[in-house]
């Protein structure tokens, strides 16, 4: 969990990157703290991968500073980069070599990675048995796992995963989520995950940053986002005659009706007023068969923040 007293593991300060005339990342600043899972949320092309690639050393920022584990990336490149691990887009290995050899080669570039550690991460991602096969025989999911193994190999203080659930089966996603939570909350690793899937973020992250058009629009905890969503929740009321119910509410109650079906009615009201609303309906002679809270408002909150109308899948 966020702890303001802890020193940030990753600091991004006013980072800008342009490609030709297009500004891909515009003055983005945020901190990433040990022990948290930070979600980087934004539609496709929002600038998530560009930021990640800048942190990982693929791009040089045009402006701004990146500080990893207290080291400025520009002046202390190797010291800074030795405490970072991650996957950018799809993990790509040397396909003709075995997973173990790939890891051994990567381990050679870090200090203090033992043979046992390689076995350990292979065990962790569940690839021990197939570690000696060439990587080209692996499925996408297995490649994701080996990529994760590589990212964790040198016990990084900062772990950055770009769309980590791509190609993973539900069991894999579950495993990944557990691993990440354990790493963050027990080993105090700062984890940053990017995704365009809100539902995934909800399950995984402690904090999220929402980005669109290269600008970081907002950083908040999942709870804050949920709270914002909750302040105008949607409820689905099941009744035999939704039209009648609508008329009753229109006459006696101040609420917005978002949708009407054959036997349901969706309304948007504050959580505190739902009791009052049901009472009003009952008083008006409508039969209530069920009341259900709709979670979809989180997405609406997201759309609201990013400006709406964008493909979020």
């Amino acid at each position, binding site marked *: 969990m966020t702890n303001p007293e802890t020193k940030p593991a990753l600091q991004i300060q006013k980072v800008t990157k342009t490609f030709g005339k297009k500004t891909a990342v515009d003055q983005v600043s945020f901190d990433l703290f040990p022990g948290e899972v930070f979600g980087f949320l934004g539609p496709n092309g929002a600038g998530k991968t560009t930021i990640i*690639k800048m942190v*990982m*050393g*693929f*791009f*040089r920022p045009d402006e701004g500073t990146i500080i990893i584990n207290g080291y400025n990336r520009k002046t202390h*490149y*190797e*010291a*800074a*980069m*030795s405490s*970072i*691990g*991650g996957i*950018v*887009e*799809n*993990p*790509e*290995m*040397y*396909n*003709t*070599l075995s997973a173990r*050899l*790939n890891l051994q*080669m*990567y381990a*050679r*570039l*870090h200090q203090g990675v033992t043979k046992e550690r390689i076995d350990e991460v292979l065990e962790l991602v569940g690839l021990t048995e197939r570690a000696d096969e060439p990587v080209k025989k692996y499925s996408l999911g297995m490649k994701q796992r080996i990529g994760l193994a*590589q*990212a964790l190999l040198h016990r990084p203080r900062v772990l950055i995963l770009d769309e980590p659930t791509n190609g993973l089966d539900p069991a894999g996603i579950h495993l990944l989520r557990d691993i990440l939570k354990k790493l963050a909350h027990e080993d105090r690793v700062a984890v940053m995950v990017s995704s365009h899937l809100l539902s995934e973020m909800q399950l995984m992250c402690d904090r999220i940053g929402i980005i669109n058009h290269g600008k970081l629009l907002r950083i908040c905890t999942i709870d804050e986002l949920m709270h914002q969503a909750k302040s105008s929740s949607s409820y689905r009321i099941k009744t035999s005659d939704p039209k009648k119910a609508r008329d009753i509410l229109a006459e006696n109650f101040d609420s917005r009706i978002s949708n009407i079906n054959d036997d349901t009615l969706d309304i948007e009201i504050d959580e505190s007023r739902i009791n009052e609303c049901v009472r009003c309906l009952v008083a008006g002679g409508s039969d209530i068969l069920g009341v259900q809270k709709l979670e979809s408002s989180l997405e609406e909150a997201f759309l609201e923040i990013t400006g709406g109308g964008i493909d979020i899948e």
Partner: protein
Amino acid sequence: MSKILALYTNEMIKLSRKLSVWILIALMTTSCILVPFLTKRMYQANLSYSDESESLDKTQLTKIRDSLRESFGDQNQYVQHDTIRFTIQNEIIELFATYLSLDEDDVYSYASYICMNTILDNYNFDKYPLNGSLLADHAYTLYMDETSNLCFMNTIPFSERDNAWYDEYIDTTERLDLANAALFSHDMDAMIKLVARKNENNGTFSLSIWKDLAAIDPEGRLSIKESRRLAEALIQREKYRKNLEMGVDSYNYSYIPLTSARRAQIEDSLLILDYQITHDKLPNETTELGVATKQVTHRAARFFLVIMMIIIAGSSISQELATGSIKSLIIAPVKRWKIFTAKLLSIFTWGLFGSILITFLSTLSTMICIGSSSLPPYYYVSGGAVKVMPHLLFTLLYFLVDNISLFIYILTAFMISCLTRNTGISVGVSAGLLLGASISTTLNSMFGHQLWIDFLPFSNMDLLSNVFPHLGLIGYLDSDMAGLFGVADYHAIPFSFSVTYLIVLSLILLLIAYDGFVRRDIQ
């Protein structure tokens, strides 16, 4: 430093797992082993053919004589004499010549016929095989010539014989006497006198060559091949002397004033040639075959090596970018210039490995196929004295110099790979440059030598002829001195210019490659 070493180890592992690398190494090895065997077989086939044409023993001579006689079939009645004594016995010859009013061809055949008869009767085939030495071979030809001359002179009617005819006649008979002595008594002095009398370069060799030859081989005992080689060396020596004397260099039928560097080079060559002649170290049949075999083998294998290195260097960066495997290098805590350095070093290691392999294998298989004595040492001049460099040491140095062009090709392919980040382009362009390297030779021959041609990379890539100016003296073929990809126009481009040029070129290539990989973003 340890990071570079780690990266280097990884690069070596990656390269060692490339199938294309091993296929090309297999091709290199195969050609190193196969080519010497093929060369030897071809040489042997050629040898048995040329042996037949050269030997001329009693039986063969008899056959030729008999066939000549048959061509005289119906003219036999006119033939009064089978033999001619070549003292001045005018009447006998006159008689025969007058009786037979033969046409030119018949005179020649008849002269040959009586020559052969005389040889069959008087020549000692056991002591000196006919055609077996340069002296015997030459004396035989001259003896036939002079006999024919005499016969022709005798076909002139008496009425037309004036004083000039008689002078010529006496001269011819005297020459015939000398040829007689040279042939039947194997008299070298007589041969020299005869060559002097003929007073023209009628034979293959001039008088001074014959004199030099006689000084080394007074009895004319060297085999025809040996003495020909010796004579060729003598001719070369004379040519060098003449060049120095006149202060010009003959090149492609034109004459260029000698530069001081070239003068020193020719002086050295002259010293070496002298040494070789006096110490009997001239290239012989075995070393010529050995050197040729090694050259051909090395060239074939080297072609595969260059292709291999172009593929390795041209794909090194671009392939990793294409497959995305570069990511694990970028994410790692290593600066990009270290990745760059390690990659370049690993490529050079493989080039070196391949080069050592083909040098070693081509030397070894030549020694096995042709014989260990077939590879001559290299001679050079140091401090005014001729020094001998053992063949293995020479091979090592040769290989280092030979790799300069390989180095440039590697850098070029690597540079294009870094710049375009496209394997196809980098391998394709480099291979194109490799095959188009002969363009400077073409340009030279099309437009004559022009200054800008000197600034083409290809014109400067071959330093072999600069470092080893005396390769020709141990039987290396001229065309190979040009290297596989260069031009041996050592008159036009000074050594120091080429070296400076290559250093600057390498630095430029490195700089472009560095900028292309280290400073640009990785997408």
